[in-house]
């Protein structure tokens, strides 16, 4: 069997450390030569992240992976997979994603004619700010570079302004005061030198966790033998999904150590940013905004049925309920 696989961003660690070895080596080896894989990424093909699942559903390729948030244009109910600020640690994020998994599976089946194989995280999204920021309240009135529709809506509700700036322009924009804060993965922020132009690091997951969904075209999946299906499912869970989550936990600690100079940093010169960890007041405030504004708006976009389902699964896990009239 030859499988064509389209990976997520080719420059990021998730692709280099986990996707590529798993699909081009681990799986073909485990199949004893039964399965061969052709792998590329959506950025190399010149297609947008939001097109990956559309094309996957059409059977243009067999297996595709991209950030779930990119596809919410076609499936607003998918926003429920990555609600910002309800999960503050990697362990909580994992529990949130696991609770959402049955919903995600149904969404992919109905919207994209696809079966979900794995949901893996990008490194946690953190906030780099210029100046002294001590709490969520201090973000009001600031210009913030964020990503994802729900994050932008959250910032609006908080009284902050979402600004669209390309990743490579963030240091310049922070320096010139075009923006006050920017959200990105902790590791990317360290290696791109954002700490040179900002003072405060908030490990508040304002940008959510950017889970990357790996899915396979349903017709292609049905054409595989039961043994092959079982083998792929088991291998993906054990040798792709699990190590990707394990690394996310470890890498956040290391990144924070490198960015603040507190703890051991093996990636290079440690910086000395001021760390603002999530506190109870912030969490309470975030939940208030979410339940009063952001999530009810989402319930309107996605429909009450999805909101109900979210309340019963993800909502129960993270302790947030969308008020439904």
């Amino acid at each position, binding site marked *: 069997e030859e499988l064509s696989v389209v990976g997520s961003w080719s420059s990021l660690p998730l692709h280099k450390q986990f996707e590529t070895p798993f699909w081009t080596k681990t799986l073909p080896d485990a199949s004893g030569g039964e399965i061969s894989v052709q792998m590329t990424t959506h950025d190399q093909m010149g297609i947008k992240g*939001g097109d990956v699942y559309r094309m996957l559903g059409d059977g243009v390729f067999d297996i595709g992976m991209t950030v779930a948030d990119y596809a919410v*244009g076609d499936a607003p109910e998918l926003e429920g997979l990555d609600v910002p600020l309800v999960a503050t640690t990697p362990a909580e994020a994992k529990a949130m994603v696991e609770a959402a998994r049955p919903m995600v599976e149904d969404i992919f089946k109905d919207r994209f004619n696809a079966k979900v194989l794995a949901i893996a995280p990008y490194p946690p999204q953190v906030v780099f700010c210029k100046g002294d920021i001590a709490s969520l309240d201090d973000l009001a009135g600031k210009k913030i570079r964020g990503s994802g*529709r729900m994050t932008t809506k959250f910032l609006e509700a908080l009284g902050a302004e979402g600004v669209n700036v390309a990743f490579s322009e963030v240091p310049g924009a922070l320096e010139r005061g075009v923006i006050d804060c920017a959200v990105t993965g902790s590791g990317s922020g360290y290696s791109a030198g954002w700490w040179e132009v900002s003072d405060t690091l908030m490990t508040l997951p304002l940008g959510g966790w950017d889970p990357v969904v790996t899915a396979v075209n349903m017709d292609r999946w049905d054409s595989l033998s039961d043994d092959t299906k079982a083998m792929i499912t088991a291998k993906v869970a054990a040798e792709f999904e699990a190590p990707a989550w394990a690394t996310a936990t470890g890498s956040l600690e290391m990144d924070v150590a490198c960015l603040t100079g507190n703890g051991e940093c093996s990636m290079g010169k440690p910086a000395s940013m001021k760390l603002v960890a999530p506190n109870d007041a912030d969490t309470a405030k975030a939940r208030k905004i979410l339940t009063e504004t952001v999530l009810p708006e989402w319930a309107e*976009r996605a429909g009450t049925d999805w909101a109900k389902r979210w309340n019963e699964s993800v909502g129960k896990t993270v302790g947030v309920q969308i008020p439904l009239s």
Partner: protein
Amino acid sequence: MITQTLAALRRINHVLAVATGVVLLVTAGFVILDITLRQFALSFGGSDEISGYVMAGLASWGLSYALTELAHVRIDLIRLQLRQGGRALMDLFAMTVMAGTVTLIAMKSWPVLEKTLTRGSRANTPLETPLWIPQAVWFSGWVWFAVSSCILVLLAAILLFRRDFAGVDRMIGTVSEADLEAGK
């Protein structure tokens, strides 16, 4: 009859091109307004998103104008070695291949709009633009390009059948030739 049809086609494309150009100019104004308002922290945002839609519209609705203006790039190294009749035959062949390809593209573009319509897809942005609007504009531009190409093939085939080679050249030849024979 053929001359009138061609003239009408050119006139329609001319009007369409002016309209497309005006939209582009308005977009430039919109971008500048956005930049200016940003200085006073009043930005309404989304100008880059709208620019993208305008680009898609321009890149589809301009195609037909470029076609009747003979502006689409063709390599005429071999073509120029041929006599008038050979050239006309080659032009008709190239034009037929083009019309076929463009018709195929237009047909394959429909599923994009269709999916957007059935899913009610909206842009993944704070504006939440209903995507059927820009995609309908973009799709219809390709359809019009396909229709124009097919009309030209038909007209040129009739002219070729009548052995009016100069007519074929004016209709679907290359610009430098057309100008040379106009006596410039």
